């Protein structure tokens, strides 16, 4: 019997969490994050002058009787916006003593469960060099099992191409929403521009960088023949402690770039190592970043 993707104990702990976004995004009522857009909410927001075309049902008639002027009551809107989980399934996710691919799936499943419990509209979208078939579910924890089945059936394949993926994404999903990207972001090309591109289209980004210990600080020394997991390219080099320090610095620099991309666009950045348990990663870095509360 295969190991379950998420333990029941963890699911119980996840019940109290909510996916949180910062941007005011338009959407139907029923969400749990306030928006700067007024609408048919419950909480009073403000008054404004009546203009032609406004709904007369929203006129504050008490004020009209006293001042004989038409004022319109505005209410705070809590829109229901789509949460889209972009899960990297490229071959680079297979590497590491604890494969990043499994870790990313667990993380995606956990976030999916959090969203479904709060009746969010969830879309699980695997990607590598292009978008694969997606899984969409909205509302109710009873939709979680199909989501788990979907994630279990996903196999790592292809080479990461963020630019192509971003292009496909904006054309496939015109409605703005929350985009949670779970990836190692190890694209041979530049992934800064594609992420900026997504943000420019109005999506709120939460970047979750998953990395293994070998990715950040390779333990090997001596003569190495390295093979790129995605491209299959080989390179031979000598590696020692000094080289390792340089390598780690380069990796950290790259993580900083990702962090800057997320923050400058009002998003959030979370870095998670695979040797940290999934529950610790959620209740630690993810909660601290404000992605879930």
């Amino acid at each position: 019997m295969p190991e379950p993707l998420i333990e029941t104990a963890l699911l119980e702990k996840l019940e109290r969490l909510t996916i949180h976004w910062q941007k005011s995004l338009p959407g139907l009522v029923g969400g749990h994050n306030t928006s700067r857009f007024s609408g048919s909410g419950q909480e009073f927001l403000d008054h404004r002058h009546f203009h032609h075309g406004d709904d007369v049902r929203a006129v504050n008639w008490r004020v009209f009787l006293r001042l004989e002027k038409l004022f319109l009551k505005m209410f705070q809107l809590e829109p229901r916006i789509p949460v889209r989980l972009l899960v990297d399934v490229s071959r680079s996710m297979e590497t590491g003593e604890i494969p990043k691919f499994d870790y990313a799936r667990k993380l995606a499943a956990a976030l999916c469960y959090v969203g479904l419990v709060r009746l969010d509209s969830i879309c699980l979208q695997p990607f590598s060099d292009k978008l694969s078939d997606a899984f969409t579910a909205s509302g109710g924890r009873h939709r979680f099992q199909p989501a788990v089945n979907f994630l279990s059936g996903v196999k790592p394949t292809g080479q990461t191409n963020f630019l192509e993926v971003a292009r496909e994404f904006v054309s496939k999903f015109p409605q703005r929403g929350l985009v949670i990207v779970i990836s190692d972001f190890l694209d041979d090309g530049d992934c800064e521009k594609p992420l900026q591109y997504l943000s420019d289209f109005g999506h709120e980004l939460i970047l979750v960088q998953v990395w293994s210990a070998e990715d950040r600080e390779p333990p090997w020394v001596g003569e190495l023949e390295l093979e790129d997991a995605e491209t299959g390219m080989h390179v031979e080099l000598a590696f020692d402690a000094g080289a390792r320090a340089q390598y780690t610095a380069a990796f950290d620099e790259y993580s900083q770039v990702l962090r800057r991309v997320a923050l400058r666009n009002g998003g959030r950045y979370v870095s998670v190592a695979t040797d940290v348990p999934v529950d610790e990663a959620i209740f630690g870095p993810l909660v601290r970043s404000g992605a879930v509360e």
Partner: protein
Amino acid sequence: MSFLNLSLGELLGLAGAISAGVVALYFFDRSKRRQRVSTLRFWTAADVRTELKHRRRIQQPWSLILQLLSIALLLLALAGPRWGGEDNSSRDHVVILDNSAWMGSRARQGTLMDDAKASARAYLKSLPARDRVMIVRADALATPVTAFESNRQALEDAIRQTQPGASALNLEQAFEFAQRAQKLQSPRAGEIVFAGAGRVAEQEASLAAIPSNVRFLPVTATGENVGLRKIGLRRSPAAPDTWDIFVVVRNYGARPHVVDLALQFGGAPAGSKQIALKPGSEEQATFSYRTRVNGWLEARIINARDAFPQDDRAVIELPAQKALRVMVYSTEPQLLRALIAANPQVDAVFEAPSKYDPQVKADIVVLDRFAPSARPRADSIWIEPPASGSPVPVKATRQAVKLERWRPETTLGAGLRSKDVMLESAEVFAAAQGDIPVAETAEGPLIVGRIGSPKIVAIGFHPMRSSLKYELATPLLVANILRWMAPETFRRLEVQAGTVGTVNVALEKGTDPASVHVLAENQRPLPFTIEGNALRFFSGAPGTVRVVTGDRELVYSLTLPDVAESVWQAPPTVRRGIPRASAQGVSATDLWPWLALLGGLGLFIDWLLFGRSRAFRLRATRMVARANWRTWRKAS
């Protein structure tokens, strides 16, 4: 310094082989490692490290040196070197205790065996307590009494229980056995100690091809020895009731001796002779003694007061002379009397046919030209039987019959070759299947033998009434018939008293090996070999052995002790006497624990500094990485 477990060559060989393996493994282990990574961007694009320009054959020479040094130390520990003091390691000795017959000789006090036991015990006491000893008793065969044993009590018991045997010493075999035992069962061979008189066969007297680690503890007899060597008896060919007796006496000493040899049969004197013996020589005395009864014949050297009295007397049992009882029923006994009663081993009685008794007490019954109503129970010879009562059917009766052919290939026809025999009248038999035809005409057999119980021979003519009576074939035919019917009576018997050990028997020419049987006292067959006309068998214990070869029977009474003729002259290089008790106080220091500790420590240090302890290193790396990451996050 000494190596206990390995020779220097073995140590260097092992060290070389293992070092070669370690170096090969080192190059394999430290060779270029293939690794699959998520991306190459940080390896190549980032300013991490130059690409490999040249391969360093040895990247961590100190690791290799440390490994080789540690392995060398462990190997040295395995060799078990010692520092200082004498070599105190346990050694395995073999003590060969001579228990040949000669060891029963008189010594100054007790016997030679007692002296040899005392020497062996003294040798045991001189050995360090940790040394192991194997006790081997050696006479004609080398027999181990104990395994390599350090229990001194068990060894002394084995020595105490050793008694002189009856056979001569086979020293070469004993040395070979001891050498093989040390080679196969002993990690550190000690000495091979021979305690005994060393009286061996002449060919072994100058035995020099002996192991280099032999020590000789000699014991010597006080006096000279004259003894019986062999006694042989056989029936005189001329007078079957007379025994020809041969006695061989040997002087083993260095001085001439004159001895009186006396024979007694059943306690009564049967003869005596005085024999003068030169040093190292043998003399044979011959006696004749007439008796038909069985009894004990004793040969004794009367006036020999020598060191070894066991070979001064020998006793042999003589079997009774059994006569063959033949009852002849004939109306003309005078014709057959010369033919049958001439044999001294035959006791013939002649009676008229009217007195025929089918249950007569005889070994063979001869029926001359008459057929009784009841056939005899004993074996019978039918001469010209009437056709109506013949045991073998008569086909026809012919006049002037020519005897065409003898059958010399059969036992009954052996040696019969008379030709052109014309018989005035003869019966021709109709032989049944299994019958043995002896003489034939063209029409059929004239003499037929029938195998069964009882045996029957039918002769179709009267041998003394025909022209055959002048032929040699007639007595031969009768002799053949009697021998065929009662072979044990005519078997030639020889009795010999000899020594135990290997016995050589000269066979008659043409003896069929299938007819040879060698039987021990309990009638069990003994193994033997036949080479040409020589039969050889071995008897390790005193007793009687019968050798049956067709019509000849030899009885060996192997009761005389086998005293070898010569004394082993040990080469001058052989150590002699009891060695000094080894010093127990000075002890050597075992180095192996320290060497093993150093070797293990070296390997541990190598593992810590250079080892590929993946789990350990990965865990450490991750802990450092995580700490660095937290620091970086806080800072950023």
